[in-house]
């Protein structure tokens, strides 16, 4: 489980910083998060290589799978949140064979496979520093 990132002890809430074990198609990420209805606004910046949400919970997701989310008051809450969020991001993962988001992957050799992967939690790679 990633540690809670609390960079300034004077702040009463913290952020979780972690990385999903996946690369993402950020355009699809933005669509999925927008459709989700949980966020007031979702912005995708191709030149910054990230998607950012606005609202009560603020998430930044980079194309290499790095994610930060805030504010949280407890590490467990933050961890649960990013694990649950990953379910919604499932289709936006890049298929390593076609280089496309699972949602758009129609390669004959893996299309079925990709489409057969109907969701779940995306594992995390690096566990976070305090």
């Amino acid at each position, binding site marked *: 489980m990633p540690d809670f990132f609390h960079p300034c002890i*004077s702040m009463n809430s913290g952020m979780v910083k972690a990385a999903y074990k996946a690369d993402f198609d950020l355009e699809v990420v933005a669509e999925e998060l927008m459709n989700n209805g949980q966020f007031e606004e979702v912005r995708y910046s191709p*030149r*910054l290589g990230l998607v950012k949400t606005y609202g009560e919970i603020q998430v930044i997701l980079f194309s290499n799978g790095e994610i*930060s989310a805030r504010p949280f008051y407890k590490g467990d809450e933050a961890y649960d949140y990013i694990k649950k969020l990953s379910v919604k991001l499932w289709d936006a993962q890049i298929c390593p064979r076609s280089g496309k988001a699972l949602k758009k992957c129609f390669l004959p050799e893996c299309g079925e496979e990709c489409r057969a992967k109907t969701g779940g939690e995306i594992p995390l790679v690096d566990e976070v520093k305090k």
Partner: protein
Amino acid sequence: MTDLKHLRKDFPIFSRLIGGRPVIYLDTAATSLKPVRVGEAMLSFHRQFPANINRGVCRLSEEASRAFGSARENIASFINSPSASQVIFTQNTTQSINIVASSLPRLAGDRKTIILTEMEHHSNLLPWMNLAGAGFKIKKIPVTPEYSLDMEKYRSMIDRDVAMVSVTHVSNVLGMINPVKEIIGIAHDKGAIVMVDAAQSAPHIPLDVVDMGCDFLAFSAHKMLGPTGVGVLYGKKELLEALSPPAFGGGMVTAVSDEEVVYNKLPQRLEAGTPAVESVLGFSAAADYLREIGFEAIRDHQQALLSVIYEKLPGIPGVKAYLPPDPGMNTGMALFSLSGLEPHELSLILDRQANICMRSGMHCAQPLVSSLCPGGLCRVSMYLYNTVEEIEIFLDVLKKVSHDLG
């Protein structure tokens, strides 16, 4: 502009590429980078005389003791201390201030007021707040809308109940230089003791404790190109002698029996236990390095970087900059926010975009920062190894972030 670009080769971090790009280090106020020479000075201890100091008669111990002693003399001359024995090596600024604060009840007589400023780092706030139980009350010199200290207010606060005035020479949040000499003069007229927190001034301003007239002064090696693990407490001799030793043990005594302990003289009296010898040697090398470059050149360079910041930062849409109006009074910091982004988010994005290292949050000075912006702020702090090109990259990325996300 004094071009200090040639110095960058002395800082190995600039040859490290992350994601194919070099690091843009704009967080010197948190801790400075260290030139190779500092590391080499520390290694000399391990390689040539790795023995404990002032404890043995073997050659290695003698050499280590001599090197340590000359490092102390060097640091003493760096701040123009009348004597090397008035330079006490501590762990850092925080410990130096704590040592003085814990002795305040015995230094203060009947006086019960402590004056601080509204711009103190927590390290020059909490040690004094901790004395509330001993009956001390704190008053703070207000910060004006121009980010200077309200000296009129200070004059009206000070009276013969003030035991201690402890002020930061340079704000770690704003970079603002405070008029410490004037503050000290006013305090001494009323018989108060003055402690100066020089953590942020030591890297930028030549320190002269005699000219300044302070009673105590504290700073850390790691903010001025030196290693972590060592700092200084300077004090006037009679005041240092009046402090309770922060620790008791080896090295601080000349004789011990069941009946009696004879304490050593300064500085050993306040330095029980084996000190961080290699860090002290690195500290001394850092002081030499700064001296060779010269504070005039550092200031010129800093002002050139600041002129780009002052010209361009406030004009970026969504940016609110908190800059002292006179850049000449700023040691190289810029505090700012970007609407729509929380400081830690902005800091993360700048780091991932261009390896820009900067500080975000409350900067260990929550009373000041939260009064400026309750959610915290971002700070870039520049030093002799930064370049105008780096500042331009920072501003450019910030502009993009402002456009796309702000």
